[in-house]
């Protein structure tokens, strides 16, 4: 049976099966009809028919994030491929492993402006980790195996394989993953031990340490999160997480300071500002995290552990770069700490925690409760109260205020349960991502915390959800504004709400019904608990339309171009005044 001849389309399917793929998300079209025909004649790979290719990409991302496996997408040439560009860029920014198979016009027509032709490898070159145009049926298997290897190794990312129609129609020879093993891409996972020893020595001598961890810890596998918890226990040091890193350290742990950054907690941001040794694990000093660069954590020695060399010294100069996979590095750090019998400086650490507890007491996530209108924070607190303690809950979000509130008010104990578009900030991400997570975890509770504006960007996926009877829950915090845009317009543009109010929104309850789902609505604070219960008890898909305060702003906030210690906790003192001209040009 080895090396048997088969059509290119059959090779594609066999390669997917040998890569352990059980589900792909896709949409057929002319150039991929042979692959769809091969798909029809087998039962090992399940195909989920989305309603828009962008939905397929985000669903594959949700699948990948919630399982740690590579997500797979199959789309046609031209518009099929270009519709994937946003999802590919999203996966690149957030380091999500996805393999996207795109159809292409036959090789002899490439360059002729043929029907549904697009220069897919040209268009996707800057938004993929790598991409391939397959020109020979004999290369299909090798390239697909290599694509999976590239997507999941090192810093994960999206890979496109462009498959011209004649290449999938013609016969070729199959190669197994073992036969296609490549030497060419093998990133370093184990760090230089001397660097690790230096890092541990620096950390052991710290008086005001902080561990700042991000999505790299989650990408390093669940073991990395456990090792992070062990290292934190061993040292007693405080931990903060980036938006991407939520779940890498238990939110309920007393050593957890909450998320840091623009809408992070006061204690996390002040601790970053005032620390003397910072251990950055699999995070990349993003502008949403650092605030003004020249005022970022001015007095600290910085250790940066990252698998991607290009992330080190990109934004912030660090004192000790350590290149390696977070799990390997943490394992080595724990070994070194134990074998050298390091002890944290108890007195200094006690004083540091006392300072941190002082910041904590200011309760930076507090908000003005109301008896008459639903505060979005309140709605999320009630949702969290209802799901707390369950380990089968996956939360995705769209992008905007609701995303930040979800990050602040929903606690994650484990990695891979929080699915949000961090780097690219893609509105319309949450619904397909929750759908992908639900496909991967059929028994789990998958909730998309959404805004009424974002949800409309990929609302068509409700139809996919109906087709596969996926019990996805959509929890809309409906304030009838693009909330984050409105907030910035209030703070920085004199309250001129240019095009941020949405008139003529659909009736989301009826919309749910139109898609065969259940629609619920809450307009008063006392309705929220009932709505949440009904939503969670419902065996079907639900759209819950929660009418919240239209003008609520998301705090704490570090205005663009400001430093961590210039964080604003609420309207008192004003946000506007702290922004200078340089800050105004920042996003």
């Amino acid at each position, binding site marked *: 049976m080895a090396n048997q001849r088969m059509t290119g389309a059959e090779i594609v399917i066999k390669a997917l099966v040998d890569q352990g793929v059980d589900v792909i998300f896709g949409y057929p079209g002319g150039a991929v009809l042979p692959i769809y025909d091969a798909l029809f004649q087998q039962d090992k790979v399940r195909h989920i028919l989305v309603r828009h290719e962008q939905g397929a990409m985000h669903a594959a991302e949700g699948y990948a994030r919630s399982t740690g496996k590579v997500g797979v997408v199959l789309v046609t040439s031209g518009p099929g491929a270009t519709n994937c560009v946003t999802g590919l860029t999203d996966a690149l920014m957030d380091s999500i492993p996805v393999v996207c198979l795109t159809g292409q016009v036959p090789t002899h027509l490439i360059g002729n402006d043929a029907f549904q032709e697009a220069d897919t490898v040209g268009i996707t070159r800057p938004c993929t980790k790598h991409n391939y145009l397959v020109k020979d049926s004999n290369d299909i298997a090798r390239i697909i195996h290599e694509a999976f290897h590239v997507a999941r190794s090192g810093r994960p990312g999206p890979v496109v394989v462009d498959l011209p129609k004649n290449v999938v129609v013609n016969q070729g020879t199959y190669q197994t993953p073992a036969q296609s093993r490549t030497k060419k891409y093998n990133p370093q996972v184990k760090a230089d031990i001397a660097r690790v020893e230096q890092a541990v020595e620096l950390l052991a001598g710290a008086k005001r340490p902080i561990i700042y961890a991000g999505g790299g810890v989650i990408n390093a596998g669940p073991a990395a999160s456990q090792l992070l918890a062990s290292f934190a226990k061993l040292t007693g040091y405080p931990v903060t997480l980036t938006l991407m890193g939520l779940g890498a350290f238990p939110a309920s742990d007393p050593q957890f300071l909450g998320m840091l950054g623009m809408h992070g907690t006061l204690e996390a941001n002040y601790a970053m500002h005032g620390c003397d040794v910072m251990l950055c694990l699999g995070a990349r000093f993003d502008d949403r995290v650092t605030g003004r660069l020249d005022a970022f954590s001015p007095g600290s020695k910085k250790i940066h552990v990252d698998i*991607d060399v290009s992330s080190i010294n990109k934004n912030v100069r660090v004192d000790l770069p350590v290149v390696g996979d977070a799990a390997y590095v943490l394992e080595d750090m724990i070994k070194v700490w134990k074998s050298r019998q390091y002890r944290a400086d108890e007195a200094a650490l006690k004083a540091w925690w006392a300072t941190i507890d002082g910041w904590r007491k200011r309760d930076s996530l507090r908000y003005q409760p109301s008896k008459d209108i639903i505060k979005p924070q309140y709605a999320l607190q009630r949702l969290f109260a209802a799901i707390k303690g369950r380990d089968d809950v996956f939360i995705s979000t769209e992008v905007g205020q609701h995303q930040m509130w979800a990050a602040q008010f929903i606690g994650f104990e484990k990695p891979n349960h929080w699915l949000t578009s961090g780097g690219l900030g893609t509105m319309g991400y949450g619904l397909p991502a929750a759908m992908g997570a639900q496909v991967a975890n059929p028994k789990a509770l998958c909730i998309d915390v959404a805004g009424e504006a974002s949800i409309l960007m990929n609302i068509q996926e409700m139809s996919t959800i109906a087709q596969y009877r996926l019990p996805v829950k959509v929890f809309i915090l409906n304030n009838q504004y693009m909330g984050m845009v409105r907030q910035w317009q209030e703070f920085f543009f004199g309250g001129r709400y240019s095009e941020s109010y949405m008139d003529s929104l659909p009736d989301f309850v009826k919309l749910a019904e139109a898609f065969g789902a259940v629609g619920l609505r809450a307009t008063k604070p006392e309705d929220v608990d009932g709505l949440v219960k009904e939503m969670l008890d419902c065996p079907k898909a639900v759209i819950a339309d929660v009418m919240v305060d239209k003008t609520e702003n998301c705090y704490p906030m570090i205005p663009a171009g400001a430093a961590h210690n210039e964080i604003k906790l609420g309207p008192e003192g004003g946000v506007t005044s702290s922004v200078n001209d340089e800050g105004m040009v920042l996003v």
Partner: protein
Amino acid sequence: MSNPVNERRHTIAVLVDNEPGVLARVIGLFSGRGYNIDSLTVAEVSAEKTQSRITVVTRGTPMVIEQIKAQLGRLVPVHKVSDLTIEGPHVERELALLKVAGTGEKRVEALRIADVFRARAVDSTTASFVFEVTGTSDKVDALISLMMPLGLVDVSRTGVVAIARGPKPL
């Protein structure tokens, strides 16, 4: 925003798989991230391994140069990135073809200067020469500026190729 005081010219050698799109990947990286390219050359150097060598001359602050190397290094078809400027002594050469048109005294003077620069005439007509010159970019620049008033009408330069001195390969 840029601080020219801190900026320095670096010659970077990159060994890549000679596959379609590899040059576009490298150029796209430079344009997409806003790095400068002063010159760039590429050609296959190992037929059996199908590898090409790209020599890129760029400029930037130490932090930017470090980024450029790291970004190049993480491209999948890239095997090796070597910063010749900081990794020890190296030789840089550029080849240029200069077309000088004219007659009479200027024509004689052009030949005389070409001789000083060890440039060879590789084509001649009664009204023109094409000179071939090899050397550092500075030498080529110097010859170009001298030929300018003598009827220089066309220049074609290869850009810099470079290699480290001593027995070690890239």
